[in-house]
């Protein structure tokens, strides 16, 4: 059962113990996500990327400790809201003036230990938050339109570009919303207990794009210009 739940391109580290027995917050919706995929010119696709390693950092960005942590990550800490920085296999998201989220391809344990060691006795914290949130990936030409139905942040490319990540709400669910490319592809990071609702919410939002678009008004041409 477990093997059919996961996309071929999602790598789950092969190991024994708890890793084999864990369940992702929306694994029961993976089949529904596939069924909800819209193809064609108005394509949009939803999938879960489970078990992504996330590490929460709290540190004063002006301190020496912050410099030490960014050396470990190979990336400076982002300075302003929305900014992300990239190191070797790590992405650092701005969460607050002294709060950051590290999303990494690595396993949590050695990296958390390294960061904790470099933080030393300085004020701050390094916490493995991987189980706090899951990752939903919404991509395709209609992805922005799906999100704009229920997200008040300006997602137009003039204001929101690949590499931008903000904490906001989609529908009633608090998420970290991160655009990873200009397909566009968005990653939504809801807390695990809200992931089921958000997944169903997004599938509802995607449904209309499976239908043929309404013909444009004769005077407004093919591009209505209001989006």
């Amino acid at each position, binding site marked *: 059962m477990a093997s059919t739940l996961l996309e071929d391109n999602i790598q789950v580290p092969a190991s024994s113990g708890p890793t084999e027995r864990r369940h992702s917050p929306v694994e029961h919706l993976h089949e529904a996500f596939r069924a909800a995929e819209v193809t064609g010119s108005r394509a949009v696709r939803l999938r879960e990327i489970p078990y992504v390693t996330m590490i929460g950092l709290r540190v004063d960005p002006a301190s020496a400790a912050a410099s030490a942590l960014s050396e470990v990550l190979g990336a400076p800490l982002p300075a302003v*809201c*929305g900014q992300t920085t990239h190191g070797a296999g790590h992405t650092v998201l701005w*969460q*607050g*003036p002294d*709060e950051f989220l590290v999303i990494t391809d690595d396993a949590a344990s050695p990296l958390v230990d390294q960061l904790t060691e470099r933080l030393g006795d300085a004020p701050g914290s390094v916490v493995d938050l991987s189980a706090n949130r899951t990752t939903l990936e919404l991509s395709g030409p209609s992805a922005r339109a799906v999100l704009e139905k229920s997200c*008040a*942040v300006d997602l137009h490319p003039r204001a929101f570009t690949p590499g931008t990540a*903000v*904490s*906001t*709400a989609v529908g009633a669910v*608090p998420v970290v919303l991160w655009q990873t490319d200009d397909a566009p592809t968005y990653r939504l990071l809801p807390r695990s207990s809200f992931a089921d609702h958000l997944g169903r919410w997004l599938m509802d939002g995607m449904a209309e794009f499976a239908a043929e678009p309404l013909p444009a008004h004769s005077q407004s041409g093919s591009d209505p210009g209001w989006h």
Partner: protein
Amino acid sequence: MILIDCPHCGPRNEDEFTYGGQAHVPYPANPDELTDAEWAGFLFYRDNPLGEFAERWMHGLGCRRWFNAVRDTYSYKIITTYPMGWAAPQTQPQTQPDTKEVSA
């Protein structure tokens, strides 16, 4: 939809914020010496002006930080926002609102 200009995150939908009451209410310097009436005044009594009011707000769905805002309680216009710890800015005095308009 009202946009509130978070000092850390910029303009965001008001749904992302929670209200924290009057700003700049100092904790008593000598709490042991207050009478019950004075203590109740500190805890429970707040200004309720018609017009500009310095308030605390918290960007709960964004950076999760408290900040202060000056809001016009008549028009709901948020005149300015500023980080915690800053003194209340001197804003332009607004013309006295016409209270008759409220009942009209």
